């Protein structure tokens, strides 16, 4: 059999590397693809630091809980350092600082981790303890980016990112210590409305 003559451009498609790949929604069925890395507990038995739990609810414009959202978490360890060493297997046992949690039928999520330490940042000073959050769901074409701070951290007052947010909106980024449960924090996401959570452009 002789091979047909085929134009080179068809044989080996060339893509324009100067243009980034854009985002599309995760849609309603992401669970089948993303469930393998769901992690409600980011710690391992010997992770140093203060064990905390963060829990909350994701609300839409009508304050209806969102049952099909997913949150991804990224934070420093208790000494304020990020895990930058490549993992051999995705998130096996040891603390990496990454988590992925879905909301349940009631729109609620929760996760357990160690409280991150303050993060030293070149040029912009010391950042108060915080967790970076990506939010994905059906209805969002592009991820939402936000941060979780903690209400019992004095360093919040000097945090360069919190200070860049209008004063009356800062509260949406701060998880409240639960007076009834030690080491538990409550943080809700409001996608729209009077208390819309601060979302960032990165």
């Amino acid at each position, binding site marked *: 059999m002789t091979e047909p003559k085929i134009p080179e451009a068809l044989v080996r498609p060339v893509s324009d590397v100067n243009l*980034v790949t854009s985002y599309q929604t995760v849609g309603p*069925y992401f669970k089948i693809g993303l469930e393998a890395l769901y992690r409600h507990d980011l710690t391992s038995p010997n992770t140093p630091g203060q064990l905390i739990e963060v829990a909350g609810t994701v609300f839409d414009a009508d304050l209806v809980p969102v049952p099909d959202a997913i949150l991804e978490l990224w934070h420093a360890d208790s000494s304020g350092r990020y895990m930058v060493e490549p993992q051999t297997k995705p998130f096996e046992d040891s603390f990496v600082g990454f988590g992925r949690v879905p909301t349940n039928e009631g729109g609620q999520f929760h996760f357990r981790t160690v409280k991150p330490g303050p993060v030293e940042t070149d040029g912009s000073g010391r950042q108060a303890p915080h967790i970076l959050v990506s939010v994905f769901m059906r209805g969002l074409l592009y991820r939402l980016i936000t941060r979780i701070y903690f209400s019992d951290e004095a360093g919040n007052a000097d945090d360069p990112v919190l200070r860049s947010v209008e004063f009356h909106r800062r509260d949406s980024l701060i998880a409240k210590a639960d007076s009834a449960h030690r080491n538990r924090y409550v943080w809700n996401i409001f996608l729209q409305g009077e208390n819309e959570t601060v979302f960032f452009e990165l």
Partner: protein
Amino acid sequence: MNPFDAPQDRLVYRKFQEGVLPPNFCPAYVSSVKRAPRLPLVPLPQTISELTGPTFTPPESVQAVDLTKGAHGAAIGERIVVGGRVLDEDGRAIAGTLVEIWQANAAGRYLHARDQHDAPLDPNFTGCASFVTDAKGKFRFETIRPGEYPWRNHYNAWRPAHIHFSVFGPAFATRLITQMYFPGDALLPFDPIFNSIRNQPARERLIAAFDWEATVPEYGLGYRFDIVLRGRHETPMENKP
């Protein structure tokens, strides 16, 4: 080296070009109306928090990933081979990044409890996989061409055939979730999700290319889907003596 040490190279990711990112509030995509924020996004500096993220050791060669063989036999549908590279805007390979994919089966049905579309499930097809790119940023998987399916966004709405891709990239700032489409799909012009991207070349980047070279004789057609993540600038910090 302490695994928690900061990376030596302080880099900052470039902004997205105009129209490349879809707006979150997009009335043609009905679910966005009650879920997309309405207030302007607040600019976030790229600190060490945003410039780090989970990374993985690249496999020695491209991982073999095959979704076409189920527990009881071959999945039903047209076998295809999808391959490509994860790169950045400057053409640098993104090695050791985790990619997760999920898709409908040949009949347009997901193996998901909430998918009530009246089309058959295939006991030999889960429609999901994950893999890590090799040192050259390459990946490759064999799967079944996904079917189109109806959804309730508007009257007689159908999603074009697509495969969902989740890619971490080197940092929190590069995290990407997107969809890969197929060339020549007649549904693309009608799809509000695909058309939410205003920049036409950016939209077309989501369409895989038929790849004759990757096509396996007597087995299945090849498609190429390169994923390009944000490129980086050096920060002034790095230029200091």
